[in-house]
């Protein structure tokens, strides 16, 4: 099996679009991941460094609101808090709209899919309402620019990002024998970030590490903090556990400085177990629920040879015949299902940008919850489930069907279902699907049946 432009869009992107031709070959597919598509500028998502000002405003206003209770300023402060909270909610909803527009209009669907893959690999969740608008900006700042770089650079940026430090409780963690502990600052070691770093981000659960490695890595990470009134993370040597830590057999410097943390992350990024764990996850996510062993071998050895150069690892994946096998075992997760529906229907900036934020939410956000993938809210740091069966339950599938039947008609003028079957699936449209498009009683139901069909759900 060799490169197939249809599968390039369907399996490695957000599906076929009537407006953008598929990449002509694997070289063009790979080329597209290195730089932003124009739609990323047209549908912007602010980076964390910008969006965090709204977080700080909210914090200040909450404090002011508490202090103003019972004074003459009470109402004015409460009104400002309310308005700023609204602004944060609207920003989050605009971020969702932008994510859909990008997926719908991009000429490099593979780039958008990779951003989503790594955002899931480095899952963060909002710790409270104050953080709710910051997840997409974290992805924009930490993940998106590094999807084609050596893995170490992506890992360092994501794991040490303020959102990750907040989500996995790194900031309160202090070395038990650190100066901060001796001065009685309270608190102690928190292993949360270290554990997920080994279990999820690098070596992988079941990999060659022990509880001792988790503990040592947690001690090594002490000193890294994000104090929430500061713009970004910092390193505080007085919180760091003194002494040299040993992680996976490697002894790291006893110097309490950020460089030691960076060295440990670089070491973990290049570890053979990391190469295998992350390659297998990529292969499962893009190629097949159970990928062939030699595909994972090829990716993992490329990883080791290139020191984790992600672009080379993707190239190894795309060079393998399994990448172009005809059997489509992966199911589009709910976001990808909606995004690819929009893309096939050519619903993009023109349709989504004018919608008020609450409409974006009710049409494109709330349905995600019904389908089992509430936007930016997976249960834990391991992100969304991979198994096809996790998404195709009666309840979740029913939610996909009812979205497909109702929502597209409210967003655009629907095309003729017979033509749409070809737009959406090209030669992959089965005779049964083309018959259904013809036999549906109404245009809306014809489009709905095509979108809800297993042919369209699989990739």
């Amino acid at each position, binding site marked *: 099996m060799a490169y197939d432009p249809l599968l390039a869009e369907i399996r490695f992107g957000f599906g076929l679009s009537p407006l953008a031709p598929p990449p002509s070959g694997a070289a063009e597919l790979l080329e597209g991941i290195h730089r932003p598509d124009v739609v990323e500028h047209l549908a912007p998502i602010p980076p964390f460094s910008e969006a965090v000002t709204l977080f700080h405003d909210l914090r200040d206003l909450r404090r002011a609101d508490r202090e103003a209770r019972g004074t003459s300023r009470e109402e004015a402060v409460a009104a400002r808090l309310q308005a700023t909270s609204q602004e944060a909610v609207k920003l989050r909803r605009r971020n969702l709209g932008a994510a859909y527009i990008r997926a719908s209009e991009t000429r490099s669907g593979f780039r958008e899919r990779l951003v989503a893959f790594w955002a899931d690999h480095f899952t963060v969740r909002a710790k409270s309402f104050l953080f709710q608008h910051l997840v997409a900006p974290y992805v924009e700042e930490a993940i998106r620019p590094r999807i084609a770089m050596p893995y170490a650079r992506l890992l360092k940026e994501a794991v040490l990002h303020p959102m990750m430090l907040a989500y996995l409780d790194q900031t309160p963690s202090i070395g038990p024998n650190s100066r901060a502990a001796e001065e009685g600052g309270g608190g102690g070691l928190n292993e*949360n970030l270290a554990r997920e770093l080994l279990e999820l981000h690098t070596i992988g659960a079941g990999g060659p590490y022990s509880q001792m490695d988790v503990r040592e890595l947690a001690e090594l990470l002490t000193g890294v903090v994000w104090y929430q009134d500061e713009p970004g993370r910092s390193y505080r040597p007085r919180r760091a556990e003194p002494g040299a830590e040993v992680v996976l057999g490697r002894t790291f410097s006893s110097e309490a400085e950020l460089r030691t943390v960076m060295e440990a992350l670089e070491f973990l990024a290049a570890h053979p177990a990391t190469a295998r764990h992350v390659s297998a996850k990529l292969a499962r996510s893009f190629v097949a629920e159970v990928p062939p062993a030699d595909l994972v071998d090829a990716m993992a050895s490329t990883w080791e040879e290139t020191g984790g150069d992600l672009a080379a690892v993707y190239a190894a994946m795309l060079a393998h015949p399994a990448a172009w096998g005809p059997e489509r075992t992966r199911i589009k997760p709910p976001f990808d299902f909606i995004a690819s529906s929009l893309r096939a229907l050519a619903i993009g900036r023109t349709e989504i940008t004018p919608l008020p934020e609450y409409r974006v939410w009710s049409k494109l956000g709330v349905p995600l919850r019904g389908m089992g993938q509430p936007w930016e809210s997976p249960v834990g740091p391991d992100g969304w489930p991979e198994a096809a069966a996790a998404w*195709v*339950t009666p309840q979740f*599938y*029913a939610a996909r*069907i009812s979205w497909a*039947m109702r929502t597209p008609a409210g967003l655009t003028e629907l095309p003729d279902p017979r033509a749409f079957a070809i737009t959406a699936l090209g030669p992959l449209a089965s005779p*049964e699907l083309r018959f259904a498009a013809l*036999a549906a*009683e109404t245009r809306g139901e014809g489009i709905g049946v095509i979108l809800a069909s297993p042919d369209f759900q699989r990739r």
Partner: protein
Amino acid sequence: MDRRTFLRSSLALGCSAAASPLATPMAFAEVPGDRRLVVILLRGAMDGLDVIRPVASPEWRAARPSLAADAGAGADLGGGFALHPALGALAPLWQAGQMGAVHAVSTPYRDKRSHFDGQDMLEAGLGSLEEGLRDGWLNRLVGQIPGARADLAYAIGRERMLILDGAAPHASWSPEVSLLLTPQGQRLLEQLCERDPLFGAALEEAMAVAGSLPEAELAGRADHERLADFAAERLTGAARIASFSLNGWDTHARQDVALKSALSRLAETVLALRGGLGPAWERTAVVCLTEFGRTFRENGTGGTDHGTGGAALLFGGAIRGGRVISDWPGLGEGDLYAGRDLLPTRDVRAHLGWMLSGLFGLSRTALEQVVFPGLDLGADPGLLA
């Protein structure tokens, strides 16, 4: 096999089982036992001190001048407690021993008083959140029931129900889901799914469940009643466990109004369950849990803020009600938790554990090591009839 891979692969199994009970019903064991459990999550933190009111306490009256104003209006529950008047419709259940309360309890969650974390703790059933969230305690319960098939346990509604998430088979449905298909559309989609067993089974089950409650019965029913109707409908079939949430308990301001409306919905929900379950009500235990209690003193806006200890409510013919079960800590200045909240005197998971032991025959070891790992069950509070 590591924990996560295990979870994933069993999840796949669970969901395909969820999708295919119609296909191979005989491949599974018969439903274990006849007892039923409904867990209602009261999201937002119900004020236990206002629902099961310690009216005999002068401190309580003093700390809640506006909220305690109608203290004489609720049914007397004995032991110095009275029921919130908005639950008046349920007072006969209390008299009949089919309603009870557990008071001054909480999960092990302390101090930070965040709804998110508090609900995660409640649903995960763990002693702390440091190990991360993997699954919910109802799911681990299902995992302990031999031969459990996917339609044994239902998560109902649109909310994420971590409580039933996890490796063990379970089903979920939201009663307002409608496929929006005409008969013609349905036939076409069935044809398209015919050659795809995964989608075919999901579609078949979705159409069966969506059609199980006649439209006419749903008409005029409020959302919370539909949740209860659907739960009852499932529980009179193959299901023995159901869970759903009721929101609206975060009463920071004008609690007299807000709590009244939340409690009225709760009362209607319980009565809908009883009506829908019919004779099965006699073998049902309903437990209403909330993430934490609220402050002892009322605040400046006629409400209460996030607190610690609170109450759990019990209903059903399977419980031994008519009592407030509590190791009551008192409400004096020195009795409060952190000087502000009702002191929890027992981990509510111990009460749940004893209930599960009685309803489903779980061993102490299974309860203390699997369902609620690290919990000390302690003595049996005797919650079941």
